[in-house]
Structures are given as C-alpha cells and as structure tokens.
C-alpha cells in the first residue's frame, strides 16, 4: 500500500498534525500494522519536498509530529490520479506452494501430506479471521472478507492439486 498517497488522501478533508495523521491512518487502515512515527516523518518530508503538502503551522515543542500539514493543489491532483489508476492484479504465477509440491514429487516425498498440512494452516487462519469478523464492525468485516476470499481461493487450488497429484507425478518424473 502506498503510505504517501494514503496520508495525502487523509489530508484532503483538512489540515492535520503529524500525530493526528498517524492516528487516523492506524484507525482506518493500520489494523495489524500501525505506522511508526519515523515512517510518518520520512513520508511527510518527501511529500513536502515534492510540493504535494505544505506546513500550515507548528505547535510549541517542535518535533515533526507537531507540524500541521495541508495538502496542495498538486497533492490533490496526485491523489486523484492514484485513485483513477487501477491496481495491478496479483498474477500469482510464482507459487512457492507449487514449487514445493513438484519438489516433493521429484524427491519421492509425500506431496499429499504437504497439501494437507497447508490446508490445515490455511483453515486455522480462516478461523481466526472469521472470529475477528464476527466481533468487528463493517470495516473489519470487509478487510477480513478480502483475506478470507483469497485464502478460500488457495484452498480450492490445494484441493484441485490434491486430486491431480498422480497425474502431476507422472509428468514431472517423465
């Protein structure tokens, strides 16, 4: 995720102090990974240098988190362009799991066991996310659903692969 664009977007509704920006980011998007002040500081100084934000005031006491930032016209254009640009879909073509399955088959180890173990690990995470979704608000639900649908897709692949292991074994050993 582009932290710079996200912080810029948060500034569009009005100027904020560094600490306020960090709090808003953590609350809305940080869930498992809150920002460090260092990240906020380095990002804001880059945005300043590029003319996308300006310093709107400084609170007594000094540090970078005490600075109040405002978005510039160039900053608004930048957020606009970022939102318009579609994200590149993840191609998932470099699969560690696929590599492991083939290596297991090549070395005479059980690829079926490998797939079962992976399946259990995926389901364990799905349980944790489902529980968090159940307790959470709509944003928790949407964030967890995104992850759950991806894990579900992985599990379907694991199932399909398990069903075709014999065929794959013949091909890779040929």
């Amino acid at each position, binding site marked *: 995720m582009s932290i710079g664009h996200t912080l810029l977007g948060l500034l569009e509704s009005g100027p904020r102090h560094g600490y306020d920006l960090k709090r808003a980011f953590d609350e809305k998007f940080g869930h498992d990974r809150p920002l460090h002040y260092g990240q906020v500081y380095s990002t804001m100084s880059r945005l300043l240098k590029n003319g996308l934000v300006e310093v709107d005031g400084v609170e007594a006491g000094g540090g970078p988190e005490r600075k109040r930032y405002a978005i510039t016209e160039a900053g608004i254009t930048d957020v606009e362009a970022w939102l318009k640009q579609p994200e590149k879909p993840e191609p998932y073509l470099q699969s560690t799991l696929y590599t492991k399955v083939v290596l297991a088959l090549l070395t005479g180890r059980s690829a079926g066991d490998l797939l*079962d173990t992976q399946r259990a690990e995926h389901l*364990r995470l799905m349980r944790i*996310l*489902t529980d968090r979704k*159940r307790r959470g608000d709509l944003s928790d639900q949407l964030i967890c659903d995104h992850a759950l649908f991806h894990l579900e897709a992985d599990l379907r692949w694991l199932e399909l692969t398990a*069903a075709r292991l014999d065929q794959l074994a013949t091909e890779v050993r040929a």
Partner: protein
Amino acid sequence: MHQAYTHRVYLVRIVLPMSLGSSSGPASGPLLGASGLRKAFGSTPALDGADFALSPGEVVAVMGPSGSGKSTLLHCLAGIVRPDAGTITYDGNDVTAMNDARRSALRRRDFGFVFQFGQLVPELTCAENVALPLRLDGVRRKDADRAALHWLERLEVDSVARRRPDQISGGQGQRVAVARALVTAPRVVFADEPTGALDSLSGELVMRLFTEAARDTGAAVVLVTHETRVAAYSDREITVRDGRSRDFTLAPAGAR
C-alpha cells in the same frame, strides 16, 4: 428484563423432562463417538471405516469432496441410517444397538436437524413451523408459541413469524430452520450443507447466528459443508475422503 428472565427459566423447565434420562455412560469420553463405520449402497461403498468424536458444545465441520460420504456419515451419527459395521455411542449408549423406537426418541429429544432446503412445512407459518417439534411433544400451544418466538428473535427472523415459507427468502428460511432445530434445546444439532443454496452474504449471516446461538445454549454442532468459509465458523474440522475421515485441525495460534 424481568420478562426475559422468567422466560429463560421457563425454557429450562420445559426442556428438562425431555432429555433422555439414561445418562448411564462414563463422564469422560466424547458426547457422540463413532469408530470403524462402514456403509454401502448396493456395491457403492459410502463409508469405509470412518471414525468420529464430538465433545459437548463443540462445533465440528465435516468437509470433503462431493460423494465422499459426508451426508452418509451424518445420517449414521444421527441414527437415521444404520451402518453395516462399526459402532456409534451417544452419551455412553450404543446407538447401533437401540431399536427403532429408541433411536427415533433420541433424534426427537436430543438432536436437532438443519438441511440444505425444503425442510419447513409449507402449509404452516414460520412461527408454527418452529413451534411444531414442541407441539408434537405435547407442549401446550401457548408455551410452544412463546418458545418459538424467542428462537425466531434469536435468529433475527421474528419479522416473518406469520409468513409461510414460500413468502420469505432462502436465507430467512434457513434461519427459521435453525430456530426450529434449537427450540427443543438439543445437545447436538446436525446440519447438512445449511448454506448450500444461499448466496455468500446470507450464508454468512446464517452461520454467524447459528453458531452463536448454538454456543450460547451449549449445543454441539456437526456441520457438513464443502465450503471452507462456512467451515471457518467451526472449532475443528474433519475431512472425509473416499469414506474415511481424518482430523487435520491445527490448534489456534498461541496454543501451539
């Protein structure tokens, strides 16, 4: 508040005389257990040595590809189908040794059922559908109706209480079916693809309300599903492949 309290006491009171009474079994061991189950339909082996164990209050998902024997396993565990070989114990009692009358009493009193669809009586309102198992057990109409409304509220479908099954959505119908399964305070609810005919959003709602209600009442659940997002509402999953069952569940993070 006072109302709710007396209501709960009432529910416990009507439920007590209905439990099977003969809890002669050992205090330890699973509530419901099976070992070496075999069942063939003609020359088709549906179960080929399946094992199973369910603790009180536990939600267990039964997963596996289509035709692997999940429904057959559920039917055997619930005493609907008699296995060709293997043993099933419920609360310390040998289910396979029971005669038909005792097995059907067990199903009525201790078990609840939710299927994929088509389980509500079309001529009855939703409230009457939920009250039906209590009425069949001789509970007075007023008391049965009150309990039915309680469960319809719990499953957030009290608004359709007076409608007939063909006047509600599929998701609402499944929640009514869950209410009907829970109204007799069963110790085990058997659910076979309860969300199989629903879109993912209504399926999720059914699963959330179903598992929360079951956990609150302490009912254990055997949940047959081929959808992993549905299975993720369980505590544990077993996988059935070619009529054999295996448990691959990993302990939650932190417990390992």
